[in-house]
């Protein structure tokens, strides 16, 4: 019986299709990835075992670190509206250009009367460490603190534009002392915000 000869096939495969798929996926991921925004206040968040992710929209973040408080809201229209309301409230005028520039700022930490100077700066200069002194959290002469007003106006703006309630999250530095955090929780509770989120990072090992 003659042996059946198996024809030897080439091992080289046509990779064009695979390459197509790979580049498609790559383009998708590059486009969906949001560029990491530089933060003016770097904080080291404490770890926890919680695995719930933070929502993307309708969220305000209060960053606390080194005794300073920064505030930021997601969404440009909301930021614009918030600044308009704040400028009415504190009688600090802002031009349309200022408001446009402000809407591009992820977060900020200056008293409102210095806000214009920070808006006028270039993006890279703004985030220099120690430049922004933080939003005042103490109430002056019976009036509510500025942070209180910012949160309040942000909530109104979100309600007006998106018709949804704003979620508040606190991003604190792990070394931050409790009285500072307590002050912020008190400000939130004054507005009857009793439910908020604490931002944590992933737990490394078992502790």
């Amino acid at each position: 019986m003659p042996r059946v000869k198996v024809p030897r096939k080439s091992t080289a495969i046509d990779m064009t299709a695979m390459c197509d798929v790979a580049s498609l996926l790559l383009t998708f991921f590059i486009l969906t990835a949001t560029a990491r925004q530089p933060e003016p206040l770097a904080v080291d968040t404490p770890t926890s075992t919680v695995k719930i992710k933070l929502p993307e929209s309708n969220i305000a973040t209060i960053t606390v670190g080194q005794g300073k408080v920064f505030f930021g809201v997601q969404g440009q229209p909301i930021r614009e509206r918030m600044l308009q309301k704040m400028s009415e409230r504190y009688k600090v005028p802002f031009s349309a250009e200022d408001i446009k520039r402000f809407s591009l700022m992820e977060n900020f930490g200056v008293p409102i009367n210095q806000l214009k100077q920070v808006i006028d700066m270039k993006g890279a200069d703004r985030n220099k460490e120690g430049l922004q002194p933080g939003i005042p959290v103490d109430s002056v002469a019976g009036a509510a603190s500025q942070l209180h007003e910012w949160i309040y106006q942000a909530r109104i703006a979100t309600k007006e534009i998106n018709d949804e309630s704003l979620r508040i999250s606190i991003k604190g530095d792990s070394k931050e002392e409790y009285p500072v955090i307590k002050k912020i929780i008190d400000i939130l509770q004054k507005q009857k915000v009793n439910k908020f989120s604490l931002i944590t990072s992933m737990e490394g090992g078992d502790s």
Partner: protein
Amino acid sequence: MAELNTGGGGGGHKGGKVRSKKQSTRVDMTPMVDLMFLLITFFMLTTTLAKPQAMDLAMPDKDDQNKDEQLDVADTRTMTVLLGSQNRIEWFVGLADNPISAPTVENYGKNGIRKAIIEKSKDIKASTGKDMIVIIKPSDKSNYRNLVDILDEMKITNIKQYAIVDINTPEVELLKRDGVY
């Protein structure tokens, strides 16, 4: 004017073009595919991992009109956790001046406060038939990490009823006495 001379002058070939050798158009795509998958993996991981985690926290309703209104809870099933300085915890069951279980200083973590919480919650469940209530009282000397850690312990030990309450003077005294303030 400038003209491309493709004929190669005059001599030699007569009317015939110089044929360049036909090369294969196939390129080896293996390194390209390798690189692409590497980048895909990178972007996938960074987009999903960069999102921070959020721990939801609900605070008890605070009413400015009647500040003194307090909800009474049975002291037999409340465990009070005082957050002191240097990452230490002091806990007791019952009231501060008359504790059912003596105040104990503990560390954070698996072998510290978690053990105590699990044991006590079992005891209280067995003796009263109800779940334990944990009252968290952070002192001024504790930091934010301590607060998140203890809230995390609540999640791990599955304590459903807990609250963050302001610390009062007898409890600060207690912390001072045990050297964790």
